[in-house]
């Protein structure tokens, strides 16, 4: 039974956002008997509303409130009105996500030590390392049902995977496989197995893919300790004279302002909205934004170094059939500076349905050459280069000086300039991706510039010392001990792996810490 809490109940933990971070935290705390109220800006969409329809589901799930983009990143030109692709609904972006679930590598927790000082990059080691994270990765994988872990068999190889692996082999790569996926290869944990529908990003109609929408949130509610409030957008976090947070002001579905009192506040709105909320919660005590004595709130925005390569073959591939992201080449994920850059990247399958393919294959493109590619859609295959990008202080989320959303909250501006390391890595990835496909007879290859950012990180980073970052190794604000950040904005660096497994593992660790600190009366 979902709980119902009073607005004046100051014993609750208020969690803002119900995606990978917020949904997981709600479940973990509720399981431990802690009362939680989840404020979620988006609607509660039921699984029965999912359709195998790219255009309709994009419209239903996507966070489309206005955002602006500045900087030299290509997205500011190709997609200025939608620079970032995240979701706005109960379950957050875990409704959309491809479910590729990878651990970070050891060296990726120590980029400053392992890469050295890099001009123009704000590199810092994480205050945690792989060894400390391992038990939490383990639990996260078990909880999410990640294939290739805990004795769960991998998903089968699709047509699209066969093409990727044949090319990888031809190029001399050795680390290619069906990805570790948070998708059931066999029925498990009360959820069905994957039917290879190919519409993972449109919401998994079979529930084979892990999403907080139908895994963690209902389970949190079933404890009787959690209340989810959809269509409630947090606008400001309030604090008392001592600097402890006391309440969250939010707009409910009617647009009316409400104030929910809180013992603890955890912010999990994804790496654009979380710093936006902290910046919008400035006060005389925190003139530059809540918990921002370091000045790092909103800075070091990372989005992974990405780019896509599509290839057209003589014969059919039908890349849209089957689990979307279920193939990976990991040979380039190593640290090897002879390639001309630090950090590494993965190559992951990137299938698209015809409508998405037509929209993105050549942004703004037209004419016979483009049409030729589309005419060969059935014979196309694609991969996504996703690698570590450099944190830069100047890549940041700020509040727009004039523009406001419908609740009067300033909209976020996202500024990003590629670091030379990002450019070198992307070019290397393009080159390798093209070679991979050409080695098995591609008639033509196409480089696609980065899409609106799906992986957003770094904007409330964790640090050992309060002056270097916003939160400590448990996501607890250095400045405000009953304020937590529970999403990818905690990451000091991006690693070369998709972020969600790490977000979930950090959240499991954080939940333990919060429960412990509460029990001790520390918070």
């Amino acid at each position, binding site marked *: 039974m979902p709980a119902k809490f009073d607005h004046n109940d100051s014993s609750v933990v208020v969690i803002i956002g119900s995606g990978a971070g917020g949904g997981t935290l709600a479940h973990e705390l509720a399981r431990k008997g802690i009362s939680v109220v989840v404020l979620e800006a988006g609607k509660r969409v039921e699984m029965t509303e*999912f*359709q*195998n*329809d*790219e*255009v309709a589901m994009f419209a239903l799930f996507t966070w489309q409130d206005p955002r602006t983009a500045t900087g030299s990143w290509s997205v500011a030109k190709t997609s200025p009105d939608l620079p970032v692709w995240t979701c706005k609904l109960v379950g957050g972006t875990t409704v959309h996500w491809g479910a590729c679930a990878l651990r970070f590598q050891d060296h990726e927790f120590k980029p400053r030590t392992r890469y050295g000082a890099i001009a123009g990059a704000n590199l810092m080691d994480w205050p945690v390392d792989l060894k400390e994270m391992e038990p939490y990765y383990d639990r996260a994988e078990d909880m999410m049902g990640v294939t290739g872990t805990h004795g769960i068999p991998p998903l*089968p*190889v*699709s*047509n699209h995977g*066969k*093409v990727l692996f*044949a090319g990888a082999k031809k190029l001399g790569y050795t680390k290619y496989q069906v990805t570790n996926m948070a998708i059931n290869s066999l029925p498990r944990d009360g959820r069905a197995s*994957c*039917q*290879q*529908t*190919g*519409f993972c990003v449109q919401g998994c*109609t*079979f529930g084979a893919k892990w999403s907080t929408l139908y895994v963690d949130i209902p389970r949190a509610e079933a404890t009787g300790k959690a209340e989810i409030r959809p269509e409630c957008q947090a606008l400001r976090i309030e604090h008392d004279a001592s600097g402890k947070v006391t309440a969250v002001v939010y707009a409910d579905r009617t647009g009316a302002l409400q104030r929910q009192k809180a013992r603890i506040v955890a912010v999990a709105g994804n790496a654009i909205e979380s710093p936006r909320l902290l910046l919008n919660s400035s006060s005389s005590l925190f003139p530059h934004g809540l918990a921002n004595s370091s000045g790092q709130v909103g800075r070091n925005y990372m989005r992974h170094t990405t780019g896509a390569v599509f290839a057209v073959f003589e*014969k*059919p*591939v*039908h890349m*849209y*059939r*089957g689990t979307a992201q279920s193939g990976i080449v990991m040979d380039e994920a190593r640290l090897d500076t002879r390639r001309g850059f630090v950090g590494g990247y993965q190559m992951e399958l990137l299938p698209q*349905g*015809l*409508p998405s393919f*037509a*929209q993105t294959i050549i942004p*703004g493109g*037209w*004419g*016979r050459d*483009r*049409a030729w590619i*589309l*005419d060969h*859609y*059935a*014979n196309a295959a694609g991969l996504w280069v996703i690698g570590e990008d450099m944190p830069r202080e100047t890549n940041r989320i700020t509040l727009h000086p004039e523009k406001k959303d419908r609740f009067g909250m300033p909209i976020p501006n996202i500024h990003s300039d590629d670091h030379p390391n990002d450019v070198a890595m992307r070019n290397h990835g393009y080159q390798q991706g093209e070679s991979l496909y050409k080695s*098995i007879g591609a008639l033509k290859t196409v480089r696609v510039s980065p899409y609106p950012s799906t992986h957003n990180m770094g904007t409330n980073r964790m640090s050992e010392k309060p002056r270097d970052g916003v939160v400590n190794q448990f996501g607890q604000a250095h400045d405000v001990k009953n304020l937590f950040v529970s999403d990818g904005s905690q990451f000091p660096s991006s690693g070369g792996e998709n972020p969600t497994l790490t977000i979930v593992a950090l959240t499991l660790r954080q939940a333990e810490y919060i429960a412990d600190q509460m029990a001790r009366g520390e918070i």
Partner: protein
Amino acid sequence: MKRTLESGQVTRRGFLVGGAATIVTVAVSGVTLLADPARNWAVELPSFTPDQARVLLQFVRDLFPHARLVETFYAEAIAPLHDEAAKDPATRELLASGIAQLNTLAHAPAGKSYADVTDEKARVAAIRQIEGGAFFAKVYGATLTPLYNQRKVWPLFGYEGPSSALGGYLHRGFNDLDWL
């Protein structure tokens, strides 16, 4: 807005499969109609003149030239743009001036339009000159998805689309590739 050439209603998406179509642009009682008489299909575009409709049709085909797509698919793609123009004078104005400019740039003979210019190179050269402008951006942005998101277009590109109701592609070829 659709109707048959005779009288009754044409269902919003109920028309045509395959084959080449001859689309005619006519004004019936002063209302512009893109029609494919052979298929008993028509779309009403009352806010465009017949000539404007023909230019837009050709322009969108030049942007996205697929020999396999008959005219009616392109007509479907410009219908939402028309509906927007019908409601918004600024869009109407943008389209009218853009079309006039295309006619000029493509060197359409007096009294003729861009759609009458048979030399594709001349039409493409005209598009190059307006690329990046507001008219180009409007038409491009408003027609791309409506063109490729038509269910009846999908099989022509080998896209099978929705699969959940059919049990996914698990038993329908997700791993049938055998040419490698």
